């Protein structure tokens, strides 16, 4: 693929774009405020890829290298927009605690027999509704509403099917932080599904 790109093979470039463009856009949105700027960043990234491909030494995978280019460009743009907050979302996701499940679903910590046990436990979901198109739309909406760093991680891992190493390399974050972001994202999507699937039961 690298050789074909160096040989200016347009089909290979088009294939790369189809594989990574949407993911690049999602990752860019961690750093910049608007979709328009994110699209700019992605376009600049592809130009950076083309300009740099002859010097690419293959020390990382092509995918990681492309995402590194994106992250550098996006960070610079983000700094220009003075968006410093989002970095903590990637680098210190634990700084702001978030519960996977609301505390009021559990018995209070001073409960005499069962502190921290379910007060209202999750009920099985109806199998046939799980497969319905509307249920998938609920998942999509829940992902759209996530903070950008969580949205990027769950998209790369659970939609695109990347490994945890691939995702954390692309984002340049630790394994632990990748897992924290994934946990929060998945927990919120589960909650959205539970809300939707049990309200009509």
């Amino acid at each position: 693929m690298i050789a074909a790109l160096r040989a200016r093979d347009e089909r290979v470039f088009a294939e790369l774009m189809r594989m990574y463009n949407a993911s690049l856009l999602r990752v860019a949105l961690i750093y910049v405020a608007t979709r328009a700027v994110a699209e700019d960043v992605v376009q600049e990234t592809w130009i950076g890829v083309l300009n740099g491909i002859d010097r690419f030494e293959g020390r990382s995978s092509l995918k990681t290298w492309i995402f590194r280019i994106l992250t550098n460009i996006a960070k610079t743009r983000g700094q220009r927009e003075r968006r410093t907050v989002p970095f903590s979302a990637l680098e210190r996701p634990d700084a702001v605690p978030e519960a996977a499940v609301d505390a009021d679903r559990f018995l209070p910590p001073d409960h005499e027999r069962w502190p921290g046990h379910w007060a209202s436990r999750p009920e099985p979901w109806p199998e046939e509704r799980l497969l319905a198109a509307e249920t998938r739309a609920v998942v999509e909406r829940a992902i759209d509403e996530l903070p950008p760093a969580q949205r990027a991680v769950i998209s790369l891992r659970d939609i695109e099917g990347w490994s945890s190493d691939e995702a954390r390399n692309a984002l340049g974050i630790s394994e632990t932080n990748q897992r924290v972001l994934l946990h929060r994202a998945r927990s919120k999507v589960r909650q959205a599904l539970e809300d939707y699937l049990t309200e009509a039961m």
Partner: protein
Amino acid sequence: MSASIEQLSCQELVELVTDYLEGALPERERDSFEHHIEGCKGCHEYVRQMRETIELTGTLAPADISPEAEAALLSAFRDWTSR
């Protein structure tokens, strides 16, 4: 059985689900996690729902490139090759 198993409450367990599914729990914690879900209907169901959530998310189509973006990028590519 052991104190550590009893100490893992449902509220704590739900925060460990991703570590568990990712194979990132140390052996002892994994054992108490599994022991807990064997005996707890609510947590057993919770873990199942997390798996169902992951599976369902996996059925979403990866986002595609918009035709406009693709056209713009291909034209940038042609500029680049003609240099």
